Each structure stands twice: as C-alpha cells, then as structure tokens.
C-alpha cells in the first residue's frame, strides 16, 4: 500500500538534491596514492648496517684528513707581559708609553705546505654579546650616499659620535673594538712575507662594505677602543676590519690574520715579533697566535670524524642486536593476537559478546 502515494510524495525532493552530489576526485575521497613503508625486521637491519658502514667509512676519511692538518698554537698574552706589570696588567696595556713589542719562537713540528694560515685566537671574548652584535650600522658601511641621521643609527650607540659631536664612520662597538695586535714573522733571520690580501669574504668586500666609504672621526672618542684605520683607504679594502666585523658565534674564536705563501719545513724555528696592543687583560681573556694548514675538511677538527664513527657504531650495534633478537625470539609479522584488545580478554569480552 505504500507504493504509489509515498513515492509520489518523495519525488519532488529527489529532483533538487541531485546537483548537490559532490564530484568525484581522488583528493575529495581521500584516496590519493600513498606509499606505506612496512618496517620488517630484515629491512630495518639492512638499513642499519648500510648506514653504519657508510658513516664509519666517512668518519674514518674525515678523521684522517683532519689529522693531516698541521697546527701550531701559541698563547702569548701572559708571556708578553713584562714581569714588573704582573699586578697591573690593565695599566700596562692602556699606557701609551710602555714597550709592547714582544718576541716569540715557534717550532714547526711537521712540514707545513703553503699556504700557511695565520690566525689570532681570542678566548673569553663575547663577540656574540647582544649589545655588541647590534652595535653597528650596515647601511652606513655599505654606501656613501647614506646620510646617517641619528635616528636610523640608534643601534650604533654608544659609539655614534665623536667628541666633537660629528658622526663616526664606521660607527658602533664592533668596529670600535677592532683587534690591533700585529705580527711579523721570520725564519732563520729571513723575514716571511705575510699576505693580508683576500682574507675577507669576497661578497663582504663587494656588497657589504662600500668602496666609496672612508673612515671618518674613527677612534676620535674619549675612550679609545682598538685599532685605528687609515682614513684614505675605503672600507672595502680594510680587510682586517671586514674580518673582525663578522662576529663570532662562540666566546672562543679565531680570525684570519693573513697567509704565509711559503712552505715551512719541519723543525724550522719561526720567530714572531708581536706588537701586544690589544687589551684582553681587563676581562681575563687570552690571546693566541695560530699557524695552520688546511685539508679538504678545513682546519684541524676531529669532531666530524668522531661523530660519524660514533653514530655508525651505534647503528651497527643496533643491527647486530636486532639480528640476535630476530634469531632468538622470532615473531610473525602482523599477528592480530598481539593487538591490545586481543591480549587482554577481560576488558573486551563484554564488547565482543
């Protein structure tokens, strides 16, 4: 009896919603193709063994490369202090009358192939301190056309204006504290040429430091920080400054001073004449001179090699233990009896009934 009348009454509603039916697409039905990794024990073990072997060999290679680097580190800040100033270190370094020249001899342990890089290394120097990092004006360094109004160079404070209230170029703490020790090298009485060209990044010289920006009023403040700059050389040529202005991440850092483009033979004695000008005594920092060759992994740093070997070792260990586990206590893959509700019958019996 429900035939004619009831179908009639529903017919007007049938016509309209047809158009509402969504169009089929694999996205809308959540049927996009997907690849699912099934982590079988065999697969895992293979992956671990492969990763372990690759990592260990990579580690060994880089460790070997790092070992081939010859490096001489010599701390000189204490040695270069005259004994009568031991108790007045800051007084010594700040006085303009004291003789700050100091000579040190370094023995070359192994042959050092050219180029030999000269670094100065500072410790306990927080170039990454917020006050320090921020205290610069990249705009000012870049272009001469930049008319530094005080507002936009607020970041340079407290080294913004010289004593006569004119703007300092380059402004800011970073530039102001430029490292100013100098080194002269000689081997067997013959002085070694130090190449100080191209020690900074090419891009820095080209884009970040203007070739038409000249130092102005630099170190013309009450407190004198570090090195002075030759105001006739544009900033893009002041490579020491450029190197210094790339602030270091760690409180212990090395910065490139120059290159000796000449091989040093084993057991050569290198005499270094140091102008010990930079004040690290005030904050118990150290200064060292570093001579180093490079390899394809860079300087002497065994960390990468050790890290690779450790990870590789762990992978191999896991692989071996998985193999043992697989042999001693195998378990079929995808056994539904391991599912939590199948393992504990008391909680589910009521639902299953």
């Amino acid at each position, binding site marked *: 009896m429900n035939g004619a009348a009831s179908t009639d009454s529903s017919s007007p509603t*049938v016509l309209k919603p*047809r158009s509402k039916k969504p169009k089929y697409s694999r996205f809308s039905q*959540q049927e996009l193709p997907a690849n699912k990794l099934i982590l079988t024990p065999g697969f895992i073990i293979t992956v671990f063994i492969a990763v372990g072997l690759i990592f260990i060999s990579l580690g060994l290679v880089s460790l070997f490369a790092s070992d081939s680097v010859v490096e001489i580190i010599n701390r000189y800040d204490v040695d270069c202090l005259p004994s009568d100033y031991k108790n007045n270190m800051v007084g010594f370094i700040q006085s303009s009358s004291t003789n700050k020249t100091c000579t040190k001899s370094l023995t070359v342990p192994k042959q050092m192939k050219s180029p030999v890089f000269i670094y100065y290394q500072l410790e306990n120097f927080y170039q990454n*301190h917020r*006050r320090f*990092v921020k205290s610069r004006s990249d705009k000012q360094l870049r272009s001469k056309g930049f008319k530094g109004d005080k507002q936009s160079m*607020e970041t340079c404070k407290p080294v913004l204006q010289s004593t006569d209230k004119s703007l300092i170029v380059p402004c800011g703490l970073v530039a102001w504290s430029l490292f100013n020790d100098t080194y002269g090298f000689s081997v067997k009485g013959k002085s070694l040429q130090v190449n100080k060209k191209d020690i900074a990044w090419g891009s820095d010289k080209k884009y970040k430091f203007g070739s038409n920006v000249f130092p102005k009023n630099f170190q013309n403040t009450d407190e004198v920080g570090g090195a002075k700059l030759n105001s006739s050389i544009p900033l893009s040529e002041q490579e020491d400054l450029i190197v210094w202005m790339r602030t270091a991440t760690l409180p212990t*850092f090395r910065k490139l001073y120059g290159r000796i483009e000449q091989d040093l033979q084993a057991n050569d004695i290198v005499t270094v004449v140091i102008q010990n000008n930079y004040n690290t005594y005030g904050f*118990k920092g150290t200064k060292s001179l570093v001579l180093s060759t490079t390899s394809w992994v860079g300087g002497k740093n065994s960390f990468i090699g050790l890290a690779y070997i450790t990870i590789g070792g762990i992978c191999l260990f896991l692989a071996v233990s998985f193999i043992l586990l697989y042999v001693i206590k195998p378990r079929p893959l995808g056994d539904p009896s391991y599912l939590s509700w199948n393992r504990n019958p008391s909680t589910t019996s009521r*639902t299953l009934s």
Partner: protein
Amino acid sequence: MKRYVYINDDEASQDLYCDNRLSNRKYTLLNFLPKNLWEQFSRFMNQYFLLIACLQLWSLITPVNPASTWGPLIFIFAVSASKEAWDDYNRYLSDKKANEKEVWIVKQGIKKHIQAQDICVGNIVWLRENDEVPCDLVLIGTSDPQGVCYVETAALDGETDLKTRVIPAACMGMDFELLHKIKGVIECPGPDKDIRRFDANLRLFPPFIDNDVCPLTIKNTILQSCYLRNTEWACGVAVYTGNETKLGMSRGIPEPKLTAVDAMIDKLTGAIFVFQIVVVLVLGVAGNVWKDTEARKQWYVLYPNEGPWYELLVIPLRFELLCSIMIPISIKVSLDLVKSLYAKFIDWDNEMIDPETGTPSHATNTAISEDLGQVEYILTDKTGTLTENKMIFRRCCISGHFYGNENGDALKDVGLLNAVASGSPDVIRFLTVMAVCNTVIPIQSKTGAILYKAQSQDEEALVHAAAKLHMVFVNKNANIVEIRFNASVLHYEVLEILEFTSDRKRMSVVVRDCQSGKIILLSKGADEAVLPYAHAGNLLIGAISCSIWKFLRPLYFIIPKFTSGQQTRSFIEAVEQYSQLGLRTLCLAWRELREDEYAEWSLMFKEASSTLVDREWRIAEVCQRLEHDLEVLGVTAIEDRLQDGVPETIETLRKAGINFWMLTGDKQNTAVQIALSCNFISPEPKGQLLSIDGKTVDEVCRSLERVLLTMRITTSEPKDVAFVVDGWALEIALKHYRKAFTELAILSRTAICCRVTPSQKAQLVELLKSCDYRTLAIGDGGNDVRMIQQADIGVGISGREGLQAARAADYSIGKFRFLKRLILVHGRYSYNRTAFLSQYSFYKSLLICFIQIFFSFISGVSGTSLFNSLSLMAYNVFYTSIPVLVSVLDKDLSEQTVMQHPQILFYCQAGRLLNPSTFAGWFGRSLFHAIVVFVISIHVYAYEKSEMEEVSMVALSGCIWLQAFVVALETK
C-alpha cells in the same frame, strides 16, 4: 509587554515599533574595524601575540625585527577579518535584496507598491501566490471563500508539507473592498521566538462588525519567510516587523562548541606559557647577574655605569621575546585550515550520500571533527533515526476482531476486505475515523491522483490505509471534508479540531455528519490517553486524570470486571500484542454528541481559545470535558521499519567501545522490541534487561537500588546488562536520586529511556556530560533538537520529519548507518591528524626556541638571537607549515582495517595521542633534537669561521631537515 497593533492606522504605531528593515549584519562600515578587532582580541592567544608584537617595537629589547611577529599577526588578523567582512557583505546583500523587494500594501485605503523595508506595524500587506511573506502577518482575508490559505514553512521549521492558515472568524466573509478600509486593534504579546504559538486577540472597530473579541492563534498568522501556496491571494496585518519577527527573534548564533582536543591544546598552551615564564625568569636573573659580574669587565661592550630605572627589566623582557615563539603563532591558522578540510572531506564523501534522495552528508560545524573520534556515549532517538519513519499500516483490531495477524498486512486480509464490502457498521465507523480525524491536506494533482500533505507520518499512513480500504479522503474544502466511500460521496463539516499535544497524547475532531446532521466526536490517540475515557470504564476511571493512568496499567485487567464487555479487554490485549511486535499503536474512538452539549462546550472552548495566559493548559482542560464516554472502535498498528544497516552499525560501534542509549517518546514495549531487533540489547540469557519503574518516590528508589545492585554484581560477568526507565520514573530519579542514577549511568553501557520528553532528553545528555563523557546525540525530529544542541556533538538525520534536527545539528547525515563511517573514519582520522599537527607545531617552535636558549648560555646570557628575523619567519611560515599540511591526507591505517577492527577507536577515546604524556614526549624530542643540532653546529664550526651567520644557517637547516624527517616519520 503587550503590543497593541492598530490596523490601518499610520499615526498610531509609526514610531512605536521598528520598521521592516531586515538586518542580519554584525557590523557596519564604521564599527567594523574596532568591533572585529575587539572580538579577535578577546581570545587569550591573540592577546598574547599582540603583547609580544608590541614589546618587539622597543628596539632595546627586541632580538629580531618586529616584522617577524607583526607580519604573521597582521596576516592572521587580516584573514579572519576579511572572512568576517565577506560573510557580512553577503548578509548585507541578501538583506538588501529582501528589503528592497516590492510589496503591495494598503495605505489610507489605497493600494500602494512599496519596498518591503518600509512596511510598518499595522499596515495591510497583500500577497499573491508563491510570494514570500515579508513580515509576520495576521491573516484577514484570502481568495478562498472559506478564508483558508496554504503556506509552506520550510524556511522556518524545515517542514516541507503545506500548512493551512485560516482568517479569524471576525473577518470571515469580508468584502474585497471592505478589507481596504478595515480598522481595528490586535492585542498581542511582545516579540518572541516561539513559532508555534501566538496568543492574541483581535477587535474590529465599528462599523465593521460588533466589537467582539476574536481570539487569534498561530493558525491565523503567516510568518516571515514562508511562502504562499495554492492560494490566489491573501492579505494580512503586519504585527511584527524587521528583526522583531518570529524568525528574526529565533535567529541567534549558537554557542561555539569546544572539542576535547581544543581544551587539551589550550591546557598545553597554558603549560608551555608557564614553562616560558620560568625560563624567562631564570635566564633574566642569570643575565642580570652575568651583566653585573662579567659584562662590566668586558670593556668592548661599554656598559654605562648608571643605567635607566628599567635596566633590570631589559634582559628578562628580551628573553620573553626570544622565547615567545614557543607558542607558535601558526598553530591557530593551520588548525583552522585543516579542520575546515576535515569538514569538507565529510561533505565530499561519496560513501555517505543518501542513495534515495542523493543528499550528501554535511558538516555544519567545521570545528569539532576530532570529537567524533572520541565519542563515548551515543544517545539516539528511535523513530526516524533507527527506524525509517516510513509508516505503514499493518494490522488493526476492530471490535474484537484481529485483522492482519496471519499475513502481516491488514490491507490484504480477506476478512477485513469482506467486512468493508459487506458494510459492517463498526468497520465503517473505524474507517471514517481513520479518514476524517486528522489534519491532513489532500492535494489533487493534475493526473488525478491525490497527494496527502501531513504533518504526522502516522496520520498519513492512516489516511492512505483508509483510501486503500475504499474510504477515500478526496477533498477538504474549508471546513467540509469530502469522503468517497465506494461510489457514494459523504460530507462532514469539521466544527472544531482538538489538537494533538504531547501532553494530551490524543487529538480529536468534532464533525457534523452532513447526511444525518448528527454531531460526532472522533478521537484517536495513545492507548493510555484514550482507553481510560472509554464509556464502559467510565464509572471507575472517568475521574482519574490522564497522567495518573499510566501507573494503573496493571489495572487494565481489573477494569473489565466492572465493565460490561469483553471489548476493552481485547483492545488492551491488541495494544500489548502489537507493541510486542514493535508496532506503533493508536486507539480510535468516537462519540455522538447532543446538540446542546456541543453548543455549551463550544462556548467554553471559544473562551479558552481566546485566553492569553496559559492558553494551552486551559484548552487541554476544556478538551477533557468533551473527551469522555468514548466508544472505542479499535486499535491500529503501524509499522515503522528499521533502517538499513542499523544492527550492524550498532554492533560495530559497540565494539569500538561506544555506549548506546536510546531515548524515545514511544512506549516501553515498542522501544524494547526495536532495541532487540537492532542489536541494541541482547535477548536472554546473554543479555539482561532491568527495569526501573514505580509511581511514587519510594518505589522508584527501591527499584533503582535493586537495579544498581544487580548492575554492580554483573559488571564482572560477560553479560549485556541494560536498564529501561520510563519518563515518569526518570523524572523522579533525576530529581531525588541523581547520584544513584549517575552511578547507574556510569555502570550501564546500554539504556532505554521511553516516554521521555525533549527536555528530559536534554537532561540525560547533560547528566552524561557532567560525568565527563563525550556524548553524541543523534535524532531527526523537532523533539530531538534540544538534545542535539546540548550534546558535545549533535548529529541530525535529514529524514522525513522535516529538517529541524539537521539544521540544529553539527553534522547532518542521510541515514543512521553513515554514523559508523562518520565516527570510525572521519572522526578517527581527524583526531589523529589534529593530535599530530598540534603537537608538531609546538615541537618545531620549541626546537628553535631551545637552540636560542642554549645559544644564550654562550653569548653571555644577553639575549642575542642566533637566527635573524628573515630565517625565523621563513622557518615558521614556509619551511615548517607547508610540509605538515601533507598530514591532512595522512592515514595511519586503511579505512577497511579500521572498519574491521573498530576496537582501534579505544586509542582515540582514551585520548592516547594527545595528552600531557605524549606532549611531554614531543617536548623531550624537541629538547633532544635541539641539543643534537646545537652541539653539532657549534662543534663543526669550532674556531675558524665560527661566524654567527654561518652557524645560524647551519643550525636552521639542521632544524628544517630534522622536522621534515619527523613529519615523514610520523605520517604514515
């Protein structure tokens, strides 16, 4: 607050009430910005981000460029503001369209064409067929000589049938010309949102008619947004206009629902915030100490000896900014984005389209998909939800004869057909009641077939069945009902309709048989609402009011002793028998009225109908005076078939650990039968059904305690225990033994509550929610709306009982069986994906943040940022937000696996994927990853070339690779 509407009198009400300008807009052009910003900033997260962004403007403390916070912040605000603006603009456009629609009104006796927005209260509005009603009107005239018109109220309540509306008696027979000049006053209550009630009075001024007060009900109104159908024209007086119409008043923004996942994310955000404050305090103090002891010695930093007053604050604030990324700004955006995608997936799902009507499922609320995966209780309606709500007349019992018992279809029962053919008076009276006692509207279609438009499916089934038995309800012309029986045409004049209410549980009509001139009362209703008033039992039961009757059910078998006949007994048996088969029963009865009895009663009824206070109650009382001494004619049994796949769906969801409660307005027997047939409860001996009953507080208490005791004992046994409770006992239990009942609710996995009212349904939802259960309410009818709105998740079945439930619900589906897919597939995936996405968002920001914190230890605790602004922004927006969107399509297990092993849902229900301990796991992971990245990048770059920018780039790419690896690993 009462309102007096003076018809056709411009001066009287011009300024008193608002005009008919519709405004659904939230904003105006002027207040958009401040109002929208105010709304957005009322959220804690946004306040936090704003604070951070403002702090960043202070260049002394900001570690990065302020743009790195302002950019995303402005972006987020712009996105949600423009979304709001776009929605509001669309609302404005539709308002404008409605406001500028031309309508005919009468002003000073002349018909005028004006815009809809200029209609004032008191104006007479003229409508033509298929016009939309511009405001709430009281009908005063139609093209129909009997003063009837038909309206479609689909926009108002979702019901697609046509409803009749009549003009008030006072205006009856008024001339077309006269209507232009009509004057009078309508006394009506202030605007409200009840679309089923309008208790008002109309008094026309002389010279029209005597100044009698004429009662008005909702039947005399046509409400805004309805359509005029099957009527040439109609006119009415505007009583509520603009936003004060019934529709305008009921419009409201539903309270936003917060999912368990959202609540957890908020909690975790709070925890991270606390952690952040601790970090900031510790580092801030350490920073200040380091500054005073060490930094002053570092001459190159040039610390001034005397700092400003806020100097102590500077370093903590710097760290606050540095750590601000711990709470990722992107989390809100990406969660909103993926949530709307989940909702779209539900809308798009081809497997959840109703095959019969082609209606797709729809997620109205896009924000709560995860909750679907965490449902613990499902409260379901029976009729139309578990069953199809396609009523089919199956059996009947007429004066002691059972028809349809053999073949299950009374319409094919030879005995009945013979009885009809031979013209047995009992059977004919029975059929007359079936055909006449209803509010069905027959519509003659062009092909000659008759379509019935009924509000109640039962009535439709009865009228159809009567038609099959040759008693055809042909036409309803105003008050005259035309019935064709065999070849003869019978006319009945409907004098009064005593309407159905859920309290009365019966409806009656008073008709005058035009052939014999007799006045007859025809009634139909639930057994307990009809049988007590049967004339045989009059002596005993007439005095007992209807509501007490149900407790006297055991007395059924005593009554016949006092009565003369075997008949009542057989009716009671029939009712019992039918309801055991899961059929819906109705008792049909009639009584001849004396002319004077009717006249007397009619006055009382008229008076009751025109009261303004408690009208419904008064009418019920008056009706009671007529509905007694009934002669019971028989019992009808209507089948309501189970929907496809209901037992399977319930079984699967049960396995998934979801508890089911059935809340129905139906009788206990019917409910239990349906429950048995759809796997809801298991038959003995596997299952046990405990019943809570009783009429008094003590009885209910005892019964409740007994059930509770049994329940406690059997919890350890593998047995399905369920309890049944009826509305009355439930009322008592909730009122007096709330604690015991709550315990019962926790112990019981299944419950059947029958004879419950809509508000009790909502109360039960509330009860379960108060026990911290996630509830889902599913229903299809208007009586489920409250329950649906109350539950954590409301699901509406867009079924035959109108769309009311589907509109109020968060999700609407076509069939009950789609619930399985909605919960197991969509709910589960959504939960898994959101759990991953939210924790991942925290992970990747914590990763960067930890590196910043570690770096501060080697940079003199001064708050230097290792990363520059650009890389931070790129990391947050570009590198980490885009790859993770892949997780929206992530499926950890295939749909088939989940459907086969619904137990997997336990994981989601217990919140195993997002809780403090999993979050601690992610926290630890980010800490570990940060240590690895930091140590490696610091050591690899030790000494020469340890420039900040390079190290930061290496660390950043380390983070990017790591998080991408995590995404690849975690998504399956």
